[in-house]
């Protein structure tokens, strides 16, 4: 029967034969769970008992939960600190690294290396750095210079930036590489023309480099924002003795989801939080694309 088909019909048969397994996969492992998560967010369920419909109760509970608002704020602090800081640092490094030829590959390797590490392993390394005297590296160095100790992970004000630092550090390498690729893509002739006209380096940066780098900047901003909004590995591992502590000072939304679902087994409540996370990610990425593309 196959032999009697036209070439075009044969192609259709092949295409669908190739797609059978993937279509099943995407339906069962991506689409069904998405719908299921939304469904569970309208139910009350502790994993053992009965599932009961509660309408918007989980969302109302979330709205009235002071911990949620604390977590909501933390999540945005991670975003609003992490994204600009990592963007500026990685641009500065990429911009200057791009102008160097001597041992260029070696320098690039130094900056990229942290990207290849595992977040959990590095969270533990940094956690050790942050310990008080006589354990932690940072405080030992401070002590040897005679500066008073800093409480990093036990302070409600310092803990969040302390947890964020390794996350920024680990992502820098990737952003630098992407920035350098973007810088390379700018045609040389623009710079040569500017050079002939005697334009200052500063003007070249603002009038040529940055405007032409816009697609790269948009990509890095959106990509890193999604990363910071979903921060979990670093926070969880640096505060395992008191997840998200002290006093929820470092708790991001994903950690709250994890605790609601797998510590308290409040599946409906956790599912409602995941829907909120989804909406936050959606709104933030769309807003950024809007603002950065148009301006």
């Amino acid at each position: 029967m196959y032999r009697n088909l036209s070439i075009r019909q044969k192609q259709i048969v092949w295409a669908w034969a190739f797609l059978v397994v993937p279509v099943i996969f995407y339906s069962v492992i991506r689409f069904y769970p998405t719908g299921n998560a939304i469904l569970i967010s309208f139910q009350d369920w502790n994993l053992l008992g009965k599932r009961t419909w509660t309408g918007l109760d989980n969302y109302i509970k979330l709205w009235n939960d002071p911990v949620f608002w604390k977590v909501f704020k933390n999540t945005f602090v991670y975003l609003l600190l992490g994204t600009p800081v990592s963007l500026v640092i990685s641009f500065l490094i990429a911009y200057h690294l791009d102008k160097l030829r001597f041992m260029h590959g070696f320098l690039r390797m130094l900056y990229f290396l942290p990207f290849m590490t595992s977040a959990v392993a590095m969270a533990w390394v940094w956690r050790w750095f942050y310990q008080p005297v006589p354990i932690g590296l940072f405080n030992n160095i401070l002590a040897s210079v005679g500066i008073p100790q800093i409480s990093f992970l036990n302070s409600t004000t310092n803990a969040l930036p302390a947890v964020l630092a390794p996350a920024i550090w680990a992502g820098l390498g990737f952003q630098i590489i992407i920035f350098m690729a973007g810088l390379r893509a700018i045609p040389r002739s623009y710079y040569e023309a500017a050079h002939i006209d005697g334009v200052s380096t500063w003007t070249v940066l603002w009038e040529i480099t940055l405007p032409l780098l816009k697609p790269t900047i948009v990509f890095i901003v959106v990509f890193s924002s999604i990363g910071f909004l979903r921060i979990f590995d670093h926070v969880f591992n640096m505060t395992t003795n008191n997840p998200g502590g002290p006093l929820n000072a470092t708790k991001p939304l994903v950690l709250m989801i994890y605790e609601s679902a797998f510590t308290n087994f409040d599946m409906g409540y956790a599912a409602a939080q995941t829907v909120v996370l989804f909406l936050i990610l959606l709104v933030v990425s769309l807003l950024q694309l809007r603002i950065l593309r148009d301006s």
Partner: protein
Amino acid sequence: MAATDQIRPTSAALLNTRAPRRPANMGQILRWIILFLGGIMMIMPIVYMLSTSLKWPHEVYNVNLIPKEPTLENYTYVLEDGRFFGWFINSIVIATVTTLCNIFFDSLVGYTLCKFRFPGRYIIFIAILSTLMIPTEMLVIPWYLMSQQFGWLDTYWGIMFPGLMTAFGTFLMKQFFETVPNDFIEAARIDGLNEFQIWWTVAMPLVRPALAALAIFVFLGNWTAFIWPLIVTNSVEMYTLPVGLSSFGDEADVAWELIMTGAAISTLPTLVVFLVFQRFIIRGVVMAGLKG
């Protein structure tokens, strides 16, 4: 330089003269030194992790970088304990199988969407694209319930199944198959190859760099994956390296040099792979980052 050049320089000689660049060079040297110091700072956490893993307990809290009496004692201790060895094997198996699976299916789907015209193509394309918007965290609860129902908790399959195909990989591959000329495919078709053979023997070898980039991303992603393995595993034997390290570090009274050793064990493989295939990996990251 030829003697005549000094009288009337050729254009080539003119291009080679660099006299006016002296002051700029000072700036270049300064720039190099600052970037070099910055780079050293960047790798300091990794260096300290390695150096501490080689120290005896009594030396651990000294800030000196090079251990006075380096020892592999911590590594023997951690590996003889056996758990890390098991977690290492788990991570290797899971990351390898997932990577192979992604290479096969992502490129198959990417190829089909790129080179075939068939009813439903656009819908499939949009459907897969839309999954990029859904964060993993939204899916972990349903995945957990699914695993519980089918008995996948605490199994390799349970850890691996969510990542066997990725939309990111599919689009990366679709982009790269655009560069494969349709004439090649037509020629192979005339030679009597079937569509599967064309994909596997003609198209796939032409996108090897993209396959490598995909492999790097998927392997690294699964090697360092944390939240899903944390949720789906219960028994210590089934942990992956990150989950194992996290629980190991959380045990009471574990010495920091042992945690650093565990961290080194879970970081070294990817670092070594990177140092060996450096150029290649950076090119892959750029390709994946810009095209994916």
